């Protein structure tokens, strides 16, 4: 059973079948199906089903492609509450950024990295900006 990081812990992956956007759009019951987004695809059709979607995966074809960060924030800002999972070629050094953009699950290509990656989630404990995990920017929280 493949493993991944979810809500800060290493767990076994019990996710349902994952469809690409094209397949997903053809499903009658798509509101309750898992879908993977690729950079450049539009979020619009997902937004209609935002309350029911159980799992959205965002693929990072390379760690330099930052479009997935915006997907994360936009989905969460529009009210998505289900699992948001990063897949593909992101790096552990990007985990705090991803978490702040609303990702709560991380599936690495190489599972050997998982322990170190969990530690990376704690690289930063304070931030300036508003984000999904801390909706108030620092300037609204400064003592």
């Amino acid at each position, binding site marked *: 059973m493949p493993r991944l990081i979810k809500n800060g812990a290493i767990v076994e992956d019990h996710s349902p079948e994952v469809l690409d956007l094209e397949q997903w759009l053809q499903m009658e019951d798509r509101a309750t199906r898992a879908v993977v987004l690729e*950079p450049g695809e539009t979020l619009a059709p997902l937004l209609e089903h935002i309350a029911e979607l159980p799992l959205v995966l965002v693929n990072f074809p390379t*760690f*330099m*492609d*930052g*479009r997935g*960060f*915006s997907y994360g*924030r*936009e989905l969460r*800002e*529009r009210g998505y509450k289900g699992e948001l999972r990063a897949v593909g070629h992101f*790096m552990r*050094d*990007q985990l*705090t*950024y*991803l978490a*702040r*953009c609303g990702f709560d699950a991380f599936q690495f290509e190489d599972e050997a990295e998982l322990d170190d990656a969990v530690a990376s989630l704690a*690289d*930063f*404990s*304070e*931030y*300036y*900006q*508003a*984000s999904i995990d801390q*909706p*108030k*920017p*620092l*300037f*609204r929280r*400064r003592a």
Partner: protein
Amino acid sequence: MYLYDEYDQKIVDERVAQYRGQTERFLDGTLSEEQFLPLRLQNGLYVQRLAPMLRVAVPYGLLSSQQLRKVAQLSRDFDKGYVHISTRQNIQFNWPELAQVPDILAELASVQMHAIQTSGNCIRNTTTDQYAGVATDELEDPRPWCEIIRQWSTLHPEFAFLPRKFKIAVCGSEEDRAAIHSHDIGIELVHNEAGHTGFRVLVGGGLGRTPVIGVEICDFLEATQLLTYLEAILRVYNQHGRRDNKYKARIKILVRAMGIDAFRDAVEQEWVSLKDGPSTLTEAEIQRAKSFFIEPQYIPFDASSAATALQDQCDADPIFGNWVKRNTVAHRVAGYRIVNISLKATGYAPGDVTDKQLELIAELADEYSMGEVRTTHQQNMVLADVEQSHLYQLWQALQKASLATANIGYLTDMICCPGGDYCSLANAKSIPVAEAIQSRFDDMDYVYDLGPLELNISGCMNACGHHHIGHIGILGVDKKGQEFYQVSLGGHQGKDASIGKILGPSFKQEDMPAIVDTLLTTFVELRQEEENFLDTYRRVGIDPFKERVYAKAD
């Protein structure tokens, strides 16, 4: 100036610790070169031709004397005893050891400095007018807004892996000294009819391979919406900017491809969900940012007697008088002057400054200018708050350290990137070209007679030397492995910014001083009354210059 509290310090300290771990992983082979590359770049570390180069952030060009002393010490302890002031107001170390960079960063953090996002495909250091807060033509001090942008852009989770680098400049004065038309986003402080402060926002400016003058996306943005609007622009860029070709990845290409109206619509649409959200600035935060830039305790002087006293000193010592005329600028407050420290003495690489010079400048800042120093995008430094009665002593001290070359804004005060002597991106050397031109035009009377003249040199298309916006621009190009130089004319920074036009086929390095000579001779023959080079060029066009230069070459 802005002072860190425990939050700011914690963020910078945690970044140092993270980078230390990343460096260790690279050195032990856990991180590949490819993976380490963006991580080190986001911390300002390039691997250059001969050694790594570390670019340290100087937020909007402002430094305390304590910070300057730390830079001097680090340049001695970890480098060869000198640093370089970049065209984006940052400070570059040329020879640090990669393994020692975490220690350098820790030292910098101890004086509230860092190298965060000084490189890489992310939001870079925000730059501004080197005369901010003291200029006579200022509407409002841009620095509080720069600091607000600095905090927002630092380690922004969504915008750390953009299609390409992203530069923001802010200006608050009549004359644009921050080159806001040449930035990805240019912000101009304005007042609306009701007298409220807001921003005119430009987008899509930039130099590089495809130079573009920024266009207006918003004529008046409410001050409190600054960050929500920036987020909207960045989000559209992050999602839609090209990632398939690094030369077409800057926002200017996207704006041009979409057209400004469609781009504005996309931003406005994105802004709907961000406007008035948590990132909307509070009045308390704006006041907090402003509280770090309140007016210092100026001594009240009588304007006319201060002017008379200075004039007497200038008359008594004409060399001093000349320096006052060329290198100092009127201050908002009577009895004070803004002093430019020229880092363009002939025989020194433009913008380079030694540890000893830095320490002297720090000392002079403490003694004469409220303990603060600024860096300029023209690669000089500024002491912004000098009492006129102290100018003479200050000048004497600067002169002894080769820091009083009276050439600010003239031909020999050229902007010049480090070029092929250091930079691995460069096609050609730029420092020797600058030096050859400085040496040829050593008759300062001639140089002054030419009037204000901006000559900018870049060693490659990346345009760090801002050659596109020089009245005379020189660009190093590679022709079958040989270094050549292409000349452009008529570039300009400022509110009537323009991109220089290419003169024609490029020249050999050794011919460059003679080519510049021909251009200047042509200008002197054609000029009317008090025209400067740009005025004459704009009146007569490029043809007369072209004819002369290439006729001679044939």
